[in-house]
């Protein structure tokens, strides 16, 4: 998913009896499934955690434009080019909805950008891997958007109103993203030997990073427990990962592709697949900034921001001039 390892500042989960009346009333509203709206009282921890989570999600959407944007100019047909353009445009739109949702919590988009550029705010580890072939565009839609859907669908019912509503809009588009990716893969899997090899190579490279998107096991994490109590997280990382594997493995088999996991086996008893663990050392290395593309991705965002400063300043200056002229006319 696009928000991994979100900290809550909670040392431990408190019971209703331990809360002061205001916080208790807040928690009871959440327990009753009510939505919290921007102007309403909320605990500082809830606000801060949501800012972290939503901004991480927003940053992921905009950094996520880069690996796919890479292939727009090289898309193999006009139809594929148009579909990919539409998809990447959607992702930028998702970023916009999410920044707006986070802004309702009292942080500006510029502040969030500053946190991204300084490395203080994270984005999903998945976007630090390179897109080396056209099949990677298929794999991203199929696997990465597929994994994103897993936790975004339940987030449509999360407790914070603006976040939940942003998710409703986003989810409508994500299933189209997943389908176009799967379709690219299915055409390649039915294509020439070179195309089949391209598809298999993409699956080999994207499989484990996709499983890492759900984050390490959080069954013992107080942060996850707190987020769940607040209803801004609904399922454990392991549960989502299991769901993703169970959904995706049959699709890979349908495509005639091999999932690169020797431990993968159907477990009749649990009614799901047993599977191996991703290399968590690699995950932490990528999170710490040492993935194959971390530097390029962040630099590309910083360059876009710095080189665009004159543009943004120009627009603001014009808006000020216009307002001044209007004032002068009115006077």
């Amino acid at each position, binding site marked *: 998913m696009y928000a991994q390892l979100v900290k809550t500042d909670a040392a431990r989960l408190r019971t209703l009896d331990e809360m002061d009346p205001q916080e208790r009333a807040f928690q009871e509203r959440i327990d009753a499934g009510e939505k919290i709206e921007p102007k309403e009282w909320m605990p500082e921890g809830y606000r801060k955690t949501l800012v972290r989570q939503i901004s991480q999600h927003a940053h992921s959407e905009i950094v996520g434009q*880069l690996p796919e944007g890479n292939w727009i100019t*090289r898309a193999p047909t006009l*139809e594929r080019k148009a579909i990919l353009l539409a998809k990447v*445009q959607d992702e930028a739109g998702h*970023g*916009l909805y999410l920044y707006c949702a986070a802004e309702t919590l009292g942080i500006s988009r510029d502040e969030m950008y500053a946190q991204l550029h300084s490395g203080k705010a994270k984005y999903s580890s998945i976007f630090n891997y390179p897109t080396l072939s056209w099949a990677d565009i298929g794999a991203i839609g199929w696997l990465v958007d597929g994994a994103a859907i897993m936790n975004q669908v339940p987030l449509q019912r999360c407790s914070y109103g603006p976040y939940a509503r942003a998710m409703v809009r986003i989810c409508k588009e994500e299933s189209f993203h997943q389908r176009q990716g799967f379709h690219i893969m299915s055409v390649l899997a039915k294509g020439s030997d070179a195309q089949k090899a391209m598809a298999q190579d993409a699956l080999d490279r994207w499989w484990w990073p996709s499983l890492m998107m759900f984050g390490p096991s959080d069954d013992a994490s107080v942060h996850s427990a707190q987020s769940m109590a607040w209803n801004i997280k609904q399922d454990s990382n392991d549960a989502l990962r299991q769901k993703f594997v169970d959904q995706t493995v049959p699709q890979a088999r349908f495509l005639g592709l091999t999932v690169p996991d020797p431990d993968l086996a159907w477990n009749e008893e649990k009614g799901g697949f047993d599977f191996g663990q991703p290399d968590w050392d690699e995950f932490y290395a990528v999170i710490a900034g040492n993935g194959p593309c971390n530097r390029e991705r962040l630099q590309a965002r910083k360059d876009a921001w710095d*080189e665009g400063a004159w*543009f943004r*300043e120009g627009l603001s200056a014009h808006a000020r001039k216009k307002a001044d002229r209007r004032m002068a006319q009115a006077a």
Partner: protein
Amino acid sequence: MAGHAVQTAPLVELALRMGDNCLILGHRNSEWCGHSPALEEDIALANMALDLIGQTQLWLGLAAEAEGRGRSADDLAYLRDVPAFRNLLLVEQPNGDFGRTIMRQFLFDSWHLPMLRALQGASDERVAEIAEKASKEVAYHLERSGDLVIRLGDGTEESHRRMQAALDLLWSYAGEMFAGDARDAEIAAAGLAPEPDSLRPVWRSHVEAVLAEATLAVPQNDYAQKGGKSGRHSEHLGFILAEMQFLQRAYPGAAW
């Protein structure tokens, strides 16, 4: 397939000229994806590129159908070499800074919209239909690019300087839009499109009005760089095609 090897019919030539402009400008705009100065601009540029690629599919689809040689729109986009491309030199010019990209778009849109409006009266119904659909999209492109030229021209000292520099650089590529050649004369004679020169007054008055509001000076040098429409391009187009056509060239005949 080279420019003069086969003389294309006027309808094919017109569709190629329109379609290639859309394809190459759409390509240039899509290069910004994820790198533009503001999230809203990423979205707007992708949207414009998407419109232009959609229009490419229509125009090149018409060119393919009208030439009747069994080629598809994709064949035309991905399997022609530089001399067979019919786009204006303007649209293949590199993006430069964001100001140059916006200025290129504005100069082109200011021609594109009146051209499409004129094409709605074409003697061929398919041309008129494509033009009608495209002109709705392009009206919005022009509104947007003109608005940005005004705001940036009349913004800060730096944004003004950059927009003036972009205008001075691109001005010499504007003239090609109005310089008719023998093929244009045939296209006009077939009732498909107006003589290019006839669009100059409406272009000029719109551009001058916007530049005046933007506090930008109309360049004095009216020398026009020409050649794109007849297949003589700048050095840039070859690199665009090398990138765009890579997969089709590396895996001939594959389906995607």
